[in-house]
């Protein structure tokens, strides 16, 4: 599929930004997203190709704007819903509950 993810050879992205002594995860939630993705993947409801295709279906403007693990989160939600492991509105409802119940 020809899409924004196919970045080889594109111009205009500017210099490569590097970070000295970069941590493995910049925020704790990034590690949780990776772990959740691995753990849910172990159920065998999707394979690596379907998983990659998941990210490739992200709208290009989001693909360019979102951080790496934000893309992973978006994909995980999509795969879980497609596999009927969660319902589409469950996350929004739980977010609302957590917001209300937050100390």
């Amino acid at each position, binding site marked *: 599929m020809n899409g924004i*993810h*196919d*970045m*080889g*050879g*594109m*111009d205009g*992205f*500017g*210099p*490569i*930004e*590097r*970070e000295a002594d*970069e941590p*493995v*995860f*910049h*925020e*704790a*939630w990034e*590690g*949780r*997203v*990776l*772990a*959740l993705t*691995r*753990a*849910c993947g172990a*159920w065998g409801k999707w394979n*690596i*190709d379907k998983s*990659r295709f998941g*990210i490739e279906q992200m709208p290009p403007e989001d693909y*360019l704007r979102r951080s*790496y693990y*934000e893309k992973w*989160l978006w994909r*995980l*939600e999509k795969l*879980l819903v497609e596999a009927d*492991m*969660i319902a589409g509105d*469950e*996350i929004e409802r*739980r*977010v609302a*509950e*957590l*917001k209300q119940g*937050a100390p």
Partner: protein
Amino acid sequence: MSEHGHHHRHNAPLSDTALRVKALESLLIEKALVDPAALDAIVESYESKIGPRNGARVVAKAWTDPAYRSRLLTDATAAIAELGYGGLQGEDMVVVENTPSIHNLVVCTLCSCYPLPVLGLPPVWYKSAPYRARAVRDPRGVLREFGLELAEDVEVRVWDSTAELRYLVLPERPAESAGMDEEALATLVSRDAMIGVARVTVPAGAKR
């Protein structure tokens, strides 16, 4: 400011993304689709066990054991497994060797494919648009940006990783490292050298 900043961080409300992740995790735990202890173990393994020290051991062994080097270049997956590394996203490994006339560089233009068992998780720059876009079009320019100037007569080979096939660069052993043992050599080998954006050097005062 820094003291306050640190104190503040623990009490600050979660960002929208962090809250969303927390919501998803609690939902999946409730449904018994994930085990929180297993999640902790996955995070812990990437933070402290699976990283470029693994790859450095592979490189150092290849530098000191010609038979191993030969096995590594013919069947990398099996040779890497001899040291106990393998599994997820390292199922099919290819090791490419730098020589005085050939320099290898690894990229994943489509996403972030990377040899996890030997290098751990990729740095942000490896996953970034500028690197993915330019490594295949202007590799010499990219290397220059990393401070690596190659002579005109050195051939540059760029390897575009895929979801299944992943590459590790076997860097050139620096001449100044003569006499160093395998363990000391492993300390010289950086993540960047195994991606192909740096050379291995011997810092002044390194143990011989």
